[in-house]
Structure formats: structure tokens, C-alpha cells
């Protein structure tokens, strides 16, 4: 009985949190749209949001969550405006927000400006590394400490970056508008890049031990869904969502029972989430109907080509090579070149893969990239060049922060001994 009550309690908490988050982002976007004062809107909503998280699990989610939050926020705005009055121009913003908060009745018909808010957060005038964090905070209400933990920076540093970025939006006059048609591709790409950056921070925790980091991947998927829902005709928004779902579907298989790292080709596909994979496939198919291919759709297609193992099929390696060719043409990324070389090693043998890797050797962008050295070591090992393989593994191990991955790389290196001269 105790367990049942507890489970129901945590389900109620999760539901309350979901609704509060959804309403929170809408209200920040709504309140800040005209004044561009995100910090002011967040200030006004912070108490309301905390109150909702405390009360809703017990009292139930109100019929109009937005109306509920706005009522609490309006009182706070009136207080804040009074407090600021003599000091600065912020009082005008806050009074305007208080008026707006009072103008929407039960809150059921407030406009959804979250996409405009995201475009403002990912504006080219905002420092690129902070864009994803800014979106997580303003749209989802995540605190700086949670975001900082996944970005591996001190909370105070993250807090400062976020404050500065919000001040820039307000002071530099970055508007909450939809980009025009000419600017749309580049501006959307910036939003998608920010969302994907948040996802990879959550996903690049292969041991899955850090709850806060893995939670971030789910939040990013939520954002990806939101963007795809609000821009259903943008194939790249759908492509990114499909890509994240494909990767997330493998979460349970990415570590063994002891918490050890398991690379993709050794994962047990039975542990992959089949429902999530099917969802990713449907979304990717929808994107392909627009006939406008792009980076995220291609990356999702790469993951799709691996995902068929879940349904008992072997990956189609020649097709993977083609997908990487197309990706390379779009991105010119050395990481794509690296992945392509690994596919070539499967289709035409390790010597051919190693030969394709050769032009990348000495690329400054890869010198500090662990997967490059691990891949090189792997191919050297298969080409019976154990000494070079060993030193490449050493390099990879030295570059890896995660203990689980380091242990995996060490075991691969030590496995070379048998073949050593």
C-alpha cells in the first residue's frame, strides 16, 4: 500500500511538473514578448512556479494552469513595479507586464510565443555556447545549477552567463519575432543547434549515473517536440526530433549491468526502445515528404540504418556510406569524415578505412577528440599494427573524462597484447 501511495504521489508530482513547465515557458514568452525583459518575467513567475510545484501534486492541476500562474504572478508584478518605481525604467516594463497579466481572463487563450522566445535566445547576437542553456532556462524554467551540472561549469558561472544573455536581449533590442523567409533557414538552424547541444550534454553521459544529465536529454526532446509541433513544415525540425529519439531509444543498452560502457556495435538491440524507434521512423518519414534534405535528417537516417538491428536486420553499410557522403558534403565536418571512414572499414576492410582516415591525421580539430584516436586505434589494431594501435589508445584514454569509457578503452588496448610482435 505504501508503495502504491508513493508511486501515485510521484506520478502526481511528475504530472504537475510537466504542466507547470509547459505553462511556465508560455507565460515567460507571453510576458516578455513586448518588453523583451525576460529576467523581469522570470522574476514575476518564479514564486508562482514554485507554488504550483508545491501545491498541484496535492490539490490537483487547476483547470486553467496558465490562469492560476498568472493570478499569482500578477500580485508579484505589482509588488515589483512598486519596489522599482523610483529607481529605474524597469518599473515601466513591470507595470506593462502586470497589465498584460490582468488582460487575459482565465489565461486559456494566451498566445503561444515560445517559438519567438527561442528565436530570440538563439539569435546570432547571443554567444553561441549559452544559447541552449538560455532556452532550457526560459522555456522550461530549469535553474542555473541544473544546467551548469550538465555543462560542467560552476553554477555561479552559468548564472552569470544567463544573466548577461538576458540583459543583452533586453538592452540590444533583440525582438521576439519570427525570422523572415530569407533568414529562416539560418535562424532555425541556430535554434536546432541549441536544442541538440542541450540533448548531447544530457546524452554524453554514457554511464547514465548522473540523473541531472540524463534528465536534460529528455528536456531537450521535449523542446524538439515543441519546435516540431510549432513548425510542422520544417523538415529539419522533424529531423532533429527523429535523431534525438533514435539516440534516446538506446539509453538502456549503453551500459552493462556493472555500469560499464558498451559501444554501439556491441549493444544488445533487444534493450533498445522499439516504440521510440518506430516513432522516430514515422517522424523522419514525414520529414522526407517535404523533399528538403538537411543535416539533421541525414543524421537521423544514419541512426535509422543502425536501428533496424532492433527488428532483426543487419545495418546496410553501403547505404550508410552514402549517407555519410551526403553529410560530409553539407557539413564538411572532420567528425563526419571519421565516421565515414569507420563505415568504409566495414564495407571494404580496415586498410581502406585507415586510408580514408589518413587525410584527417593532423587535423587540429581532431587532435583533442577522443573518438578519433579510439577509432584510429581500432583500425590500426585490425591492420595488425599493434604498436601504433597501442599509442593511439593511450592518446584516447588520456583525452577521456569518463571513467567507464576509459576502462573500455584500456580493455581494448590490453586486448592487443596477444597480437603483439
Amino acid at each position: 500500500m505504501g508503495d502504491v501511495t508513493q508511486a501515485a504521489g510521484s506520478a502526481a508530482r511528475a504530472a504537475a511538473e510537466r504542466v507547470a513547465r509547459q505553462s511556465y515557458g508560455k507565460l515567460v514568452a507571453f510576458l516578455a514578448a513586448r518588453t523583451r525583459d525576460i529576467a523581469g518575467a522570470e522574476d514575476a513567475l518564479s514564486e508562482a512556479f514554485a507554488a504550483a510545484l508545491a501545491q498541484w501534486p496535492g490539490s490537483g492541476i487547476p483547470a486553467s494552469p496558465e490562469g492560476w500562474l498568472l493570478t499569482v504572478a500578477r500580485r508579484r508584478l505589482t509588488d515589483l513595479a512598486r519596489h522599482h518605481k523610483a529607481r529605474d525604467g524597469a518599473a515601466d516594463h513591470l507595470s506593462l507586464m502586470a497589465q498584460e497579466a490582468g488582460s487575459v481572463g482565465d489565461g486559456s487563450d494566451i498566445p503561444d510565443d515560445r517559438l519567438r522566445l527561442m528565436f530570440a535566445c538563439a539569435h546570432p547576437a547571443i554567444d553561441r555556447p549559452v544559447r541552449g542553456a538560455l532556452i532550457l532556462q526560459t522555456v522550461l524554467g530549469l535553474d542555473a545549477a541544473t544546467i551548469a551540472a550538465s555543462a560542467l561549469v560552476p553554477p555561479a558561472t552559468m548564472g552569470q552567463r544567463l544573466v548577461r544573455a538576458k540583459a543583452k536581449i533586453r538592452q540590444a533590442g533583440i525582438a521576439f519575432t519570427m525570422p523572415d523567409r530569407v533568414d529562416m533557414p539560418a535562424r532555425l538552424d541556430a535554434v536546432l543547434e541549441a536544442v541538440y547541444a542541450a540533448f548531447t550534454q544530457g546524452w554524453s553521459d554514457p554511464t547514465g549515473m548522473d540523473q541531472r544529465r540524463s534528465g536534460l536529454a529528455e528536456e531537450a526532446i521535449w523542446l524538439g517536440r515543441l519546435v516540431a509541433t510549432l513548425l510542422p513544415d520544417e523538415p529539419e525540425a522533424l529531423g532533429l526530433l527523429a535523431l534525438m529519439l533514435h539516440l534516446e531509444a538506446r539509453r538502456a543498452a549503453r551500459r552493462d549491468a556493472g555500469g560499464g560502457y558498451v559501444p554501439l556495435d556491441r549493444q544488445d538491440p533487444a534493450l533498445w526502445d522499439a516504440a521510440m524507434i518506430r516513432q522516430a521512423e514515422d517522424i523522419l518519414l514525414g520529414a522526407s515528404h517535404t523533399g528538403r534534405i538537411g543535416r539533421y535528417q541525414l543524421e537521423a537516417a544514419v541512426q535509422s540504418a543502425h536501428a533496424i538491428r532492433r527488428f532483426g536486420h543487419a545495418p546496410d553499410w553501403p547505404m550508410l556510406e552514402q549517407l555519410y557522403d551526403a553529410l560530409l558534403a553539407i557539413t564538411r565536418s572532420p567528425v563526419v569524415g571519421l565516421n565515414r571512414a569507420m563505415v568504409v572499414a566495414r564495407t571494404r576492410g580496415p586498410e581502406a578505412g585507415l586510408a580514408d582516415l589518413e587525410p584527417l591525421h593532423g587535423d587540429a580539430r581532431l587532435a583533442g577528440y577522443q573518438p578519433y584516436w579510439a577509432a584510429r586505434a581500432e583500425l590500426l589494431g585490425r591492420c595488425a599494427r599493434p604498436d601504433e594501435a597501442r599509442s593511439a589508445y593511450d592518446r584516447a584514454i588520456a583525452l577521456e573524462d569518463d571513467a567507464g569509457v576509459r576502462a573500455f578503452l584500456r580493455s581494448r588496448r590490453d586486448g592487443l597484447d596477444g597480437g603483439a610482435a
Partner: protein
Amino acid sequence: MKYMLIIYRDEAAFPDSRMAGDHSAAYIAYTEALKAAGVLAGGDRLQSSHTASTVRVEGGETQVLDGPYADTKEQFGGFYILDVPDLDAALKWAAKCPGAAQGAIEVRPMWVM
């Protein structure tokens, strides 16, 4: 909102004598376009940076130094003040400024009194 477009360009690449030619024509056309759009709120071109003097008062003493405040690869050579709705509008105008193709334009919102 008012923004200042601060024009930086390499003076060595644009000696004063050449400024009278195509370069000036491009600026005249740009300025006319700003006027026609009703966004121009001010602006001027400066003499080259070797004409600059830099003044500071330290401990009650006035010090005057020959030359510009910052010795940079590209020099501050002129400015426009625009009155436009938001940063995107200011950035679009900055991209059209002849100086954007020859140097760089810094776009700064003006302080609201």
C-alpha cells in the same frame, strides 16, 4: 530604438585621395537610402586617426597624447545613428553599409535616458 553603427576600416587600404571616388558614391547612395527609409537620425565621417588626440585627467593633471585611444588594425572612421524597431533591423542596415564589406560595423544600442 536608436542604434549607432560604428564604422571600422583599414585606413591604409583607403587613402584619403581615393575616398572621393567610388567609395564616396557608395556612401552617398547608402545615406540616401537611410533617409528615404526614414531611419536616419544622425551620422558623420571622421578625419583619419592620425589627426586624433587622446585626453585623460589623472590626479587633477590633464594629459594629452597624440593618436587615437586604441591602436587597432582597423580604425574608427565614422558613424550613423539609426532609429529602427529592433536589433534585426539595425543589423540588416549595417550589412548594407559600404563599410561592412571593407572592414567591420559595430552595432550598439544607444542608452535610453
